[in-house]
Structure formats: structure tokens, C-alpha cells
């Protein structure tokens, strides 16, 4: 069974934790706004890739940096991380908030992205199929909205009120609010998404209650060559819910 190796790095003054596994071409995965459900889905990728799984500043095990207060700071953070690791080019997979960061990264630094996978990405405004306002949702409603099958995340949720869990979620929501409170989307994305000329795959859970799967077509309007794979019986956490989704990512990148 694959286990992640845990490394501590300092990227432009911010101490971060990087999980790694496997060898081969680098695969950089950018996680979403909640890290409590872990990264089991990424383990099979280690069979063929050198999987790089950093916690963003302000999330999970990485340190806070309140001065990083817009998405572009996170784009620059990953430019600096790749430089630090001596990686010229990676396969880039971004989920949800991480998908937003990945799309911006690929728009601005396309030459450093071999292939791009956006899994239920945030960041695009679609008034016909609006993204749920994650910052405005009562905390107790959120877990059920993440999945189609609740059993998938149940093991990661506390069974009784847990101050540490509440504190961890509050911290990650705080970091998310720094980036998204005023504008939960980037109105400039449609203008520049055409720059995503690398092979691109859009992955979605059909029953995504946070970012509706119909948004896949909206993204494709701006990235005409992108492939779309939508998985039935899965919600926002499509990678956690469907092994086929995780396999589809791997096959696309291979």
C-alpha cells in the first residue's frame, strides 16, 4: 500500500508540508478548501507518477500567511514551489478551490503545465448554474452537500462536538474567505481561459451540489479542446467517491 512521505519546506518564508509518493513524471495536486477528507484517492496515481501533494498555506498542516490574500498569491506560491523543487514542467490536477488556482496557474504559466485536469473547479461565474456560497452555508449543512453517498466522508467527521475539528474548519474557512469573501469568482477568467492550450480534462460528479456539473460545459465554451468526464452517483468529492474518476485522471495524464 502506498504511503505518503511528509516533507517540510519553506517557500518564500512560508513553512509548508508537502506529501509525496511514487516516482516518474511529476503530478502536482492542488486540494480544495477543506482538507479533512484526506487524499486516499491520490494513492493509485503513485503507481505511475511522482505525486506532489502540498497543503496550501493556511490549510491542513501548512502554516498561515494572512498576507496571501488573493488567488494570485497562491499562483505565485506554486511558481515558487516548482522553482524550489527544480521542476520545469508538471502535470497539474486541481480540485475545487485548487482547480481555480490551477486554472489561473495554467493561464499565466502554460509552459510549465504538461497536461491539466480540473476537478469540479471553482472560480467561474455561471449565473444559470450558480456555485453554492460555501462561506454562507451553515457548517452543519456542508458535509452532506459534499457527496452523493454520505458514508464516503462519514469516517472523517467527528461523532461528537470536537473543538479541534471546529477550529480546523474555521481556520480553513478563514483562509478561503481571504480569497473569496468579496468575489467568489474571477470575472476575468472568460477573457483569458483560451490560453489553456495544453491537453485539458474537466472532471465532475454529476450530483455536485456545490458547483453544478453543468458548469463543465460553461468551462468548455472557453476551452474548446477540453475533454469532459462526468461521473454518475458522485457529488463534489468525485475523486473520493468514484475510483473510476481517479483512474480517469491517471489515464488522461499517462
Amino acid at each position, binding site marked *: 500500500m502506498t504511503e505518503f512521505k511528509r516533507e517540510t519546506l519553506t517557500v518564500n518564508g512560508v513553512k509548508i508540508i508537502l506529501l509525496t509518493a511514487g516516482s516518474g513524471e511529476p503530478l502536482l495536486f492542488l486540494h480544495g478548501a477543506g482538507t479533512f477528507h484526506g487524499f486516499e484517492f491520490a494513492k493509485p496515481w503513485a503507481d505511475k507518477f511522482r505525486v506532489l501533494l502540498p497543503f496550501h498555506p493556511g490549510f491542513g498542516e501548512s502554516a498561515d500567511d494572512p498576507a496571501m*490574500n488573493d488567488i494570485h498569491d497562491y499562483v505565485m506560491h506554486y511558481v515558487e514551489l516548482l522553482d524550489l523543487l527544480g521542476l520545469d514542467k508538471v502535470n497539474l490536477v486541481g480540485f475545487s478551490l485548487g482547480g481555480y488556482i490551477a486554472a489561473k496557474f495554467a493561464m499565466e504559466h502554460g509552459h510549465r503545465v504538461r497536461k491539466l485536469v480540473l476537478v469540479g473547479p471553482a472560480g467561474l461565474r455561471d449565473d444559470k448554474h450558480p456555485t453554492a456560497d460555501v462561506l454562507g452555508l451553515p457548517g452543519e449543512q456542508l458535509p452532506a452537500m459534499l457527496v452523493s453517498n454520505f458514508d464516503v466522508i462519514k469516517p472523517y467527521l467527528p461523532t461528537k462536538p470536537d473543538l479541534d475539528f*471546529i*477550529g480546523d474548519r*474555521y481556520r480553513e474557512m*478563514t483562509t478561503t*474567505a*481571504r480569497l473569496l*469573501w*468579496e468575489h467568489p469568482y474571477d470575472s476575468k477568467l472568460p477573457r483569458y481561459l483560451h490560453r489553456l492550450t495544453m491537453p485539458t480534462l474537466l472532471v465532475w460528479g454529476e450530483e455536485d451540489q456545490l458547483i453544478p456539473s453543468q458548469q463543465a460545459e460553461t468551462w468548455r465554451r472557453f476551452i474548446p479542446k477540453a475533454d469532459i468526464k462526468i461521473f454518475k452517483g458522485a457529488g463534489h468529492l468525485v475523486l473520493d467517491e468514484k475510483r473510476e474518476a481517479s483512474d480517469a485522471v491517471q489515464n488522461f495524464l499517462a
Partner: protein
Amino acid sequence: MSGNARFNFMHFLPYVHLPENHKEFKSLWVDFSNKYYDPKRGHTLYQRYLSELVLADRLGFDAIVVNEHHNTAYSMMAAPNLIASAIIPQTRNAKICVWGTPPNLEYPNRLAEEYAMLDVMSEGRLEVAFPLGTGMEYWANPINPTTARERHRESIAIILQAWTQDGPTKFFGEFYTYRFLNPWPRPYQKPHPPCYIVGTGSPETVELAAELGFGYSAVFVTKQRALELNRKLRERASSYGRTIRPDQMPLGVITYVAETKQKAEDEGIEHIRYFFEDALRTTPEFLNPPGYISVEQLKIRAALADKLHGKFDFDAVNEAFFCAVGTPDQVVDQLSQWGETMGTNHFNLMAAVGNMPNWKVVKNLSLIAEEVIPRMRTTAPVARRAAAE
């Protein structure tokens, strides 16, 4: 307690005509629909509340305190400066305390202007507080709670610059740029009206008050916590070479006075119950939007909320909070004792609590003015002395 004891009348101007099923709503703040607001009944309430505020001046209270909240039945003062403006021409001696508009919710130059207007209009009777604003205000207004504290500091710096330096001046900040900071009018009082920070006791706001030499008043904290905060304020202020005067630590007290203890409880408790159970009812999310407080503070408050959870229990409220309900003698004793312990002579009396009807407010104010205040004054209060001269 020494020096001139000071007595404020603080009013929340609540909207009290809640729908019958209001208990079904987890919060009477933020998302409690304004369809339940009836402007006709609102008008009647404003008329009544304004008369109560004015009465406090006639009865000899030293100050009238108003404040600001949004999206809530708790308070009909989304814009407290309007209330201040309405009572200035109807009052003679009382200080007008706007405690206050959260500076984050207005352009700082505009707040400097509005306060200066009120100070000039009232011939220097204005006092202001610069609250951060409750968490609920950040759901109702387009301001990011994660940068609320930095913005709060910057806003106050702009207001103080506008008040203390001859304009035009410049200000280039993180949140605001002023090329011509030059608000007219300027405050009547020099260098500016007395300033306070009002908060719920986060370390950052206490520090800010200490640093700026402002007064500090903690609201809705337990007695024990209030004592710690006053101690902390004095200690932090001395680190900036400042001494906090007793009158800079207003003590908020829910007060109801009647002829007998029993009568005070019979008449007062139901409204105190309404205040805690209904008017203040909201959710943890609304209280603490992301980034509004630190993770450490959130855990402390979440643990505390668990303990306070449950049905209203007057004895528990009475034990935990500053709540003076009784005969004039009992209330005098209680206030004197708390003043001594807390090192203050400034009492901010919440004497129109919850859904209290007009007759009780009038009776309460009258008894406080005639039976409590005179016994606690060691010398004539500043406002009266000034009026007599």
C-alpha cells in the same frame, strides 16, 4: 468608588412585534426576514423610544447611549447618528454617546464628518465609540471579516488624523487613499470628542484602546471576564505610558428598580428573559464569520457557548452578568460594590431591556433618577455643573 459617578441610559430601540412562530427561527439576526418589520408599528416604537431617550435627559441622567446593528429585530438603529441627531435639539445637558457606528461600515471621512456635525450641533456633548462591529454586521455589509481588524485600525487612524490635523492632509493606506482629507465641519471639542472602544473582549481590541488611550467597555462578557479585561486594559495602557481613568471603563449593567425586590423581579425578569432568549438569539456562524476572530478565540467561545446552552435561568444570568434588579437600596449597594471592584465610576445602565413596555421604562428611569443616582453622587456631575454655570 470616588469622584463623580456617572450614569448613562442605554437604549437598544428593539423591534418587539415578532411573529408568533418566532421561536422557530434560530436567529433574529442576519437572515431573519425583514418582511416581519411593520413600518407603522415601527413608527410608533420610534416615537415612544425617542420620548424615553429625551426623558432620561430631563430626569438628570448624565448621558444617553445609542449604538448600531444591522439586519435585526434586536435594534432599530441601523444608523444611530440619525437617532442622535433627532434627540440633540430635544435634550439640554446629557452627553450624546454614539457607541457607535463600526468605522468599517462607513467611509472613514464620512464618519469623521457625521460625528463632527453631531458634536457641533450639540455644542460639544458628543462621545463616540469605535466598535469593530459584531460578527453579524459582517454578514449584512460588504466588508471582508478576515481583514476587519486591520481595516478598523486604519479607519480610526484616518478619523483621528482628520480631527486633529489642519486639512487638507493625505492618507495612503492599505484600504483607503485620501488625497484631500479635509472634512468640514471639525469637532466642537478639542482635540476631539471622548473616544471609546466597545467590544466583547478580544485581546486585539483591548490592545487598541490601550494604545490609543481610549476608554474600553466590554459588552456581554461575564463579571469575571470584565474584571480581567479592566485589569488588562490598565496594564496594557501603562505599557504605552498611559493611565486609564475610572470613567474610561464604563460598566454595562442591566438595571431594573422597583419598590420591592419581589416587584422588581416580577416586573423586570420577563423582559430580561426576552433580551437573552430572543433579542440576542443567533447562530455560531453569524456570531463568528470566517476570520472575524482567531482560531484560539473561536475555540474558547465555542466551549463557553456549550456551557451557556440551555433554557434561560435568571439566577444563572444574575450570577454571571452585571444585572441589578431590586429596590433602590439594593441597586445602590450593588452598583457601589461593582464600581469598587471594577475600578470604575461610570455606569452604563441598560434600563429599557428587551420588550419592556413604556410604563415600566418610565417608572424604572424615574426611580433610578430619584432614588439611585442622588445617593451615589459624591459631587455634582460634570454635565449638571456645566449647565448650572
